[in-house]
């Protein structure tokens, strides 16, 4: 199974609201970030949570988001601060809005 994204790719987190167990926090949904690392393929926690084996495995990525991207200045952070989180491949889409500073 080939990973869809590579380090440096710009991605956006989907805004789905499935009823079951997920590991994508709401505060990151719809936010744009950059792939920092590929942590390899893992069984899906969304299936494991219901006693299922969770295959086929899904790739998990470390995604970096700037603080301003998430909080738009409404927080206690310095301008260069960031959040990184592990996000599963099926929660990510390519970020096609490439205007603006990288």
């Amino acid at each position, binding site marked *: 199974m080939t990973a869809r994204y590579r380090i440096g790719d710009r991605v956006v987190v989907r805004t789905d609201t499935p009823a079951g167990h997920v590991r994508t*926090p709401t505060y990151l949904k719809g936010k744009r970030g950059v792939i920092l690392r590929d*942590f390899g393929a893992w069984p899906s926690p969304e299936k494991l949570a219901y006693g299922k084996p969770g295959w086929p495995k899904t790739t998990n990525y470390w995604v970096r988001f700037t603080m301003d991207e998430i909080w738009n200045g409404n927080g*206690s*952070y*310095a301008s260069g601060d960031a*959040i*990184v989180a592990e996000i*599963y491949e099926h929660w990510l889409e390519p970020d096609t809005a490439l205007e603006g500073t990288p």
Partner: protein
Amino acid sequence: MSHDHDEHDHAHDHDHAHDHGPFQPDIKEPSEDWEFLEIALRELMIEKEILTAREIQEKIEEWDGKCPEVGARIVAKAWTDPAFKARLLADGNAGVGELGLSVPGLKLVVLENTESVHNMIVCTLCSCYPRPILGLPPLWYKSREYRSRAVREPRSVLAEFGTQIPDSVEVRVVDSTADCRFLVLPQRPEGTDGWSEDQLVNIVSRDSMIGTAVVPAP
């Protein structure tokens, strides 16, 4: 609950974590429903030979042996052995494996704090923590307040811990949302040149390996 320890700015908190002494005795009789539930479930499972009292005791003792000093030893070795540090950063599981430690089923990722990046770990969704390396997480790490605020207010959270990071340094909040478990490799402070690993172990606090503290110069 007793409040034996005040661990503000206390670099030796791992020593305290190690001072187990007697188990915290059950000072009070069970009074809340969940305390009776714990007894009921345990007694039922023992009666039905699902668990034994001995296994429970042994598991408790196993975990009492896991404390932040384990992590401090990893840090001290990384500080004194650049080749080990490189291997540790490249593959945390293999790195700690060299010291006979394992983090089964999970990916241990060691994050180095540098002049340009300060990592701070949180699990906003629950309480994911590198337990095999640092032992049981502190109550504050699992609290609603830390989990909610760390990702939005890292600088004010750090200030509550007495930690100031210059604005020029990126504070990188690591939300542990999946199967990685993160251990911060704090910056080695000034004034420790030539120190042995044993000396260095004594100054590495648990909070510096979570990222809410730094290791101050001695």
